[in-house]
């Protein structure tokens, strides 16, 4: 019910095209877009490119979350790491990561490697900062208690500090998830031979606009649903903290 305006928008779209208010060359009707999307799904173009995108996005994001979280916790736990890496993180954080697209292409070419590297580099810092802040906010008394009960320093890190940092890591990872979509689509639009972003550009250059609109909508809504799904999942997984 809340999303009624979206339905309204879809109806207006269909109506203005059917009534001939806008040229079909500029805006294919929603029904044509749906048909073209269905054809793409059946013919497998969508799945092959989707798999390429999923692999790149998944690998880059997984690396970013694991290494980013480890780096953040290490910064919070060892002063020397903080002194060494902290200012670097601060200096690199505001740097716009999409600017690295041409560099990753120089390094690793047009294929999967350059996208994975880009997504890893672009998504790591929000997770690192989350882990750092989360681990630092861990109550010192908890750490002391665990230590006095005989837990080793590494044990404390795993059993006390990491769980305490999880909510903040999850927050950072949410930012990273959204960023990964943006970086994936931009890099595939600009230089790629496969992937959903590539498919959008390819269909557009070929003048197959109904299919292009279909893929754009699918990618946009995937971004939206991934965010919602992630939030649901985290609410469930982090329910213990409330």
């Amino acid at each position, binding site marked *: 019910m809340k*999303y009624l305006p979206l339905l309204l928008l879809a109806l207006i779209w269909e109506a203005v095209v059917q009534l001939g208010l806008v040229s079909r060359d500029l805006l294919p009707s929603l029904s044509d877009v749906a048909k073209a999307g269905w054809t793409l799904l059946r013919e497998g173009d969508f799945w092959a490119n989707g798999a390429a995108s999923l692999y790149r996005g998944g690998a880059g994001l997984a690396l970013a979350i694991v290494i980013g979280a480890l780096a953040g916790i290490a910064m919070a736990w060892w002063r020397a790491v903080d002194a060494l890496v902290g200012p670097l993180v601060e200096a690199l954080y505001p740097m716009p990561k*999409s600017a690295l697209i041409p560099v990753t292409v120089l390094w690793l070419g047009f294929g999967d490697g350059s996208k994975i590297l880009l997504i890893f580099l672009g998504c790591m810092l929000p997770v690192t900062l989350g882990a750092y802040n989360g681990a630092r906010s861990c109550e010192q008394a908890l750490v002391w208690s665990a230590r006095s009960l005989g837990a080793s320093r590494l044990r404390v890190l795993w059993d006390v500090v990491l769980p305490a940092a999880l909510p903040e890591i999850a927050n950072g990872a949410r930012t990273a998830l959204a960023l990964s979509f943006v970086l994936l689509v931009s890099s595939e639009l*600009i230089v790629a031979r496969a992937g959903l972003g590539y498919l959008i550009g390819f269909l557009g250059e070929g003048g197959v606009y109904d299919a292009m609109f279909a893929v754009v909508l699918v990618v946009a809504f995937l*971004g939206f649903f991934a965010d919602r799904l992630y939030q649901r999942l985290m609410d469930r997984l982090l329910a213990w903290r409330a």
Partner: protein
Amino acid sequence: MARLTLRFAPWIAVLALALAWELFARSGAVTPFMLPKLSTVLARIWGDAASGELWQNLGLTLYRSLAGFAVAAVIGIGLGFAVAYNRVMRWLFDPLISVGFPMPKIAFLPIITLWLGFYDVSKISMVVFDAIFPVVTATIAATLAVERELLWSARNLGASERELLREVVFPAALPQIMTGLQVALPIALIVCIVAEMKLGGVGLGGAMITASRFADSPGVFAGIVEIAIAGYLLVRVMARVRARLLAWHPETEAPATV
């Protein structure tokens, strides 16, 4: 002394990074193609600055991103007030905003290009589309958070709705709106650069992608350095503007952290 170190820590980090870059590139561990020396890159930037090419690219990129940012700011703040105050507008736009916010809006670039062509209008529209979301959401949140007592008092003293908006709501909401604008500005710059990379032509993004196609790695790294500096300066200017506009606000008396 500790505070002094803290203040300069980012600069020391940047210097250390620059030094590490130069030494690593000189060490021969990587080819100059993979990572040209920083000194080569700086010489390249200097050359581009002397020939005027840098200023042309930089000027166009800044023009597009700032034009888009300005439009996004004006429409975003207006729309934010409208959504916060008007039931119909809220019913209409609330779901659109909450669905649109997490979407990768750059995916719409080919559609915008189809409608508006390859030139400035297209790039600026893409910037507006991407940068408007943080402004709208910040404005809505800020407006809804204005204390009711303030509104009641002003109404009681006979303020019209218009005066209320201008004299009470806007100033009270300004800190949070400014935060939204501060988020939107770097987005405007980077979206502009990505659009330039896709659509080509003059501009920092176009220059970088051309350099990349011709395997001109000093050109690519020059672009990175230029974009980093431009982004940093924009963020600093925005922080200054915030301090100016909010000089009356208690927050500006707190020590600045950046």
